[in-house]
């Protein structure tokens, strides 16, 4: 089958166009989490008088960046029907290498090291999954251990650090600089999401990412094309970790093998909370963006109210379940989801399109 045939086949399996007029399903898909975020911010302003202070908002935006950047790439992955459990290990390793590189060659080398190491990690994962056919869950779980392990070995004699003498350096400034009052790290996150949106919704590659995720059948018929797209997805993940690292270690100034334990689960949580379905084919960058901010705002609110760490965990877990229950309940009732309808007629459509 040629590439055009593949694309046509994939396109024929798109869900039927939404009927005109207001559809709650469509609204919730794109703006559901954003709406909850707005409600939460209103609640926060009421409960925490200092919430809207410049410093507090800047703090929330600044620290959301590294989670958000990787969550953006993870949304791509989940829409393609896969995911990457190794991003926490990648973050640790890239952070360590970047700090070492800074010590050797200053900012230019550090920037190159961050991007380069991130892409390298992505290529390894991608190769394992596409060329060696290791299931993504296992491949990335194993690589999580390997990446962290390498980071540990590299920092055997002590963590990688940005020395205090560099406090005024441009590199350190990346983490603390505010442009017109907006933290630079957040601006980077906005740029990443912007580029991501364009690639996902306006390019052929982006459409293929979604198409192959929503229809494993189309993926099967396209063989190499699907594999290439999946490799692309993993490289994007690695690249995102590289960029995220720059926003992360310029704020924290240190890294070793134990950095950000559990990061991968938080990233996947953000993407799924934002509307990405682990079945593939469905996801929302707006949703992911809102979900990342939602988690940060909620965390800030709980901390300022003095809620103990254990209760914070309970509340965050419940929020996740509630959000997904709403989504899950919708898919259980066939009438409210067009995508589910399309999938259940999948085989018939293939027969007629062929």
């Amino acid at each position: 089958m040629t590439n055009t045939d593949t694309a046509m086949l994939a396109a024929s399996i798109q869900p039927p166009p939404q009927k005109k007029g207001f559809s709650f399903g469509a609204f919730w898909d794109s703006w559901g989490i954003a709406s909850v975020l707005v409600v939460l911010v209103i609640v926060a302003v009421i409960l925490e008088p200092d919430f809207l202070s410049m410093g507090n908002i800047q703090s929330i935006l600044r620290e959301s960046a590294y989670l958000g950047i990787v969550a953006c790439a993870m949304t791509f992955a989940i829409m393609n029907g896969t995911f990457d459990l190794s991003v926490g290990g990648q973050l640790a390793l890239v952070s360590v290498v970047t700090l070492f590189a800074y010590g050797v060659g200053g900012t230019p080398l550090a920037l190159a090291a961050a991007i380069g190491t991130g892409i390298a990690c992505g290529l390894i994962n991608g190769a394992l999954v596409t060329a060696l056919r290791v299931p993504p869950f296992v491949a990335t779980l194993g690589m999580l251990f390997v990446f962290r392990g390498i980071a540990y070995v590299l920092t055997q004699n002590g963590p990688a650090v940005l020395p205090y003498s560099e406090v005024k350096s441009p590199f350190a400034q990346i983490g603390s600089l505010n442009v017109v009052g907006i933290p630079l790290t957040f601006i980077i996150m906005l740029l990443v999401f912007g580029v991501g949106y364009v690639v996902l919704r306006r390019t052929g590659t982006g459409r293929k990412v979604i198409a192959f995720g929503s229809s494993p059948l189309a993926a099967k018929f396209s063989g190499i094309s699907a594999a290439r797209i999946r490799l692309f997805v993993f490289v994007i993940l690695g690249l995102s970790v590289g960029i995220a690292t720059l926003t992360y270690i310029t704020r924290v100034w240190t890294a070793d093998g134990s950095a950000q334990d559990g990061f991968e689960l938080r990233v996947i949580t953000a993407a799924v909370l934002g509307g990405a379905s682990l079945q593939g084919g469905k996801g929302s960058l707006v949703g992911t963006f809102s979900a990342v901010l939602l988690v940060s705002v909620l965390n800030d609110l709980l901390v300022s109210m003095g809620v103990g760490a254990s209760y914070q965990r309970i509340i965050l877990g419940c929020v996740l379940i509630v959000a997904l229950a709403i989504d899950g309940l919708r898919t259980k009732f066939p009438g409210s989801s067009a995508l589910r309808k399309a999938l259940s007629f999948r085989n018939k459509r293939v027969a007629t399109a062929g």
Partner: protein
Amino acid sequence: MKHTKMWLMAGAITATAALALTGCSTGDAPAGGDGETKTDITVGFSVYDMQYEFFQEMEAGTKAAVEANGWDYVLHDEKSDENEMVTGAQALLDQGVDVLIISPFKPDALGPIIAKAQELGVPVIVDDIGGGGTPYDAIVVSDNKDGGVQAADFIDAQVKELGLTSKKVVSITCEPSAVYAAQRNIGFVEQIESLGYEVVTELSGNSKAEEAYTIMKDALAKDPDVAGVFACNDPMAVAAANAISDAGKNPTTDIVTVGYNGDGEALTAIDGGTLSATVAQDPKGMGALTVDLAKKLLDKEDIEFGNADEREVYQPVTLITKANVADFLK
């Protein structure tokens, strides 16, 4: 319509949860005071992780001392997360605390915090763990290396007293990133080797009790005639002692077991004869000491440093054994 119901449900749940939170609040007094008098001082205390008894004690000591001075107090829990540490400590500074006391989860992440503090002219005092080579104003540390030396001396004395013939010991270290706690085992190994012993196993238990248990089991299998074991913290020491007793030996008379910290479980074990000794820190005292130093800094007085180059102020550690444990049990 079904959809409207769900929309309302989502909004209602969020609102209800948030309202319920107001009932759950266990918060401390907000920062900044009323701004009525200039002498109203607010102390911000950022702590490693309130899950651990050691830091709960430190927090209690700090808070009591702050309130005894008539000052305001704000607490921040880093929850063993370096990202939270930086964000939260910077938030305390943003809120306008007059002094920052911090017990850092990752000392190397102090850089950005000190940078901001210096920008705002706020003095910073570090409580234990480490200073990361940053320009803090003062650091209060337990004398970790000396603690390790005391442990080594104790094991040597006990071995002679019990008439044990073996010269083999085991050293269980904390997680590799705790570079300052590592001083304990470094001091221990130096001293014990100078006393003629051989460290047959030195492994990291990652500061976790369950890992120390397995390490001790394996160490015993390799060298059944081990004479002593020193662990970098009490949870690991008690776990190692359990492993020893599960293997059929006595963790005070067959093998000398020493921990570090002075946690409740260690004191109980020493009293009950299932642990030989521990090197106790005094987190409460350390907390009070940091507040004392804070006052000096705010009053622009001089501080007497134990080590002026590193601006270290030492809190002595005490070896607790069966002989004196009764004094320490509350």
